[in-house]
């Protein structure tokens, strides 16, 4: 059975149609496997090779990948929710209730969207703490940290703009308070609030603006920066690996690593004098 399957698989990957789509060809050699990544438009931003130990759970806790996973869940469930949602007053609230009580699987999709949003914010923070405490933000990765901070802001803005869309009391007052906080910006504060809301009140204009930001502008910005973020991992030399010790022991844990860093810092300071 397995033999037959392998035979068909082999025949398929050697077919002219397959070869016209996947130029790297079949084969399991190191070169072929590298080419499969390198010659694929979606994968070529990723490194062609990864250290084996970087695939272990304790290397990264997969926090970045999990964040991407929640983002993809949010995109898919978000698109599905858009089929039933009108960003108009007061229809938006009725649509939200319909999704909850009338639409098949609407409750599941809405809850999945909401919980994934909460999870994504939490995972972004966890990812950033992890990167920070492992020192993975240091050169040559410092620009990718900046991209990460931009992605944090985009994530928070996505979360905030999505909050208004159910058009319930919680949404209305959260956006009232939030845009009033923006008003405290010196000089241009009231103008920022006016532009955000498209008026002076949290009203139909504000709902439409937040909808467009939430469903089009911010997701596009997120995708753009995610692509750069991933591409930079490859350009900056792959995932950050902690320095191995010469005798092949496990990488130093934080306290002793800290003492090494401190002694290096002291040595450098002395040298500069």
């Amino acid at each position: 059975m397995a033999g037959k399957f392998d035979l068909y698989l082999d025949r398929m990957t050697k077919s002219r149609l397959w070869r016209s789509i996947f130029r790297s060809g079949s084969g399991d050699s190191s070169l072929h496997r590298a080419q499969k990544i390198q010659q694929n438009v979606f994968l070529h931003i990723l490194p062609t090779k990864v250290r084996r130990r970087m695939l272990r759970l304790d290397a990264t806790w997969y926090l970045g990948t999990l964040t991407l996973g929640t983002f993809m869940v949010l995109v898919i469930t978000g698109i599905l929710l858009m089929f039933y949602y009108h960003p108009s007053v007061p229809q938006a609230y009725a649509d939200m209730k319909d999704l909850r009580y009338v639409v098949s699987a609407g409750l599941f999709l809405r809850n999945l969207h909401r919980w994934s949003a909460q999870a994504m914010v939490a995972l972004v923070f966890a990812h950033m703490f992890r990167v920070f405490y492992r020192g993975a933000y240091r050169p040559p990765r410092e620009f990718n940290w900046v991209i990460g901070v931009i992605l944090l802001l985009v994530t928070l803005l996505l979360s905030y703009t999505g909050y208004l869309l159910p058009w319930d009391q919680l949404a209305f007052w959260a956006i009232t308070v939030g845009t009033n906080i923006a008003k405290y910006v010196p000089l241009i504060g009231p103008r920022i609030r006016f532009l955000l809301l498209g008026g002076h009140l949290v009203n139909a204009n504000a709902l439409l603006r937040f909808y467009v930001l939430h469903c089009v502008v911010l997701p596009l910005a997120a995708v753009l920066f995610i692509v750069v973020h991933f591409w930079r991992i490859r350009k900056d030399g792959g995932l950050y690996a902690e320095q191995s010790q010469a005798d092949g022991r496990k990488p130093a844990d934080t306290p002793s690593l800290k003492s090494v860093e401190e002694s290096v810092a002291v040595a450098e300071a002395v040298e500069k004098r």
Partner: protein
Amino acid sequence: MAEDGKSEPAQPEQEVNRRAFFTRLGLGSLGLAAAGTLSFSYQYMSPNVLYEPSPIVNAGNPSKYAMNSVTEDRVTAIYLIRVQEGFFSLSAICTHLGCMTAWRPDLGIIACPCHGSRFTRYGKKIAGPAPRPLPWYRTWLSDDGDIMVDRATVIPPMQFLRI
């Protein structure tokens, strides 16, 4: 020196060859176009006509307000208050972050549910993070004898409408 040096090479920043000229021209036009796009976008995103409720509210006949009463209207977000000195109207929007305040008859104060600001019935702040007192709105009597409130015009406090 520069005056007598015949073989002095031309200053690099003064020398503009064709390529540099077109580069500057191109970048300059792009910058101009970007500035235009920015200004255009800003104007487009600022609505010129707003379909928001009128700021002028008809609060009805004065006789329906009892002496020493505070009447709140949650739709228009105003208080219509009658005291010995006369009538006046306060904004019900908290000056901190824009929440709707509420009149607490049991305590005789106006309280904000969001962050705990408290005001007297004259709008003066008693407690909480609100930076300013609740603003007083201009009030007048219409020809039909109704109390009118203009939510767009703030007046100094303690100007009562005497009837």
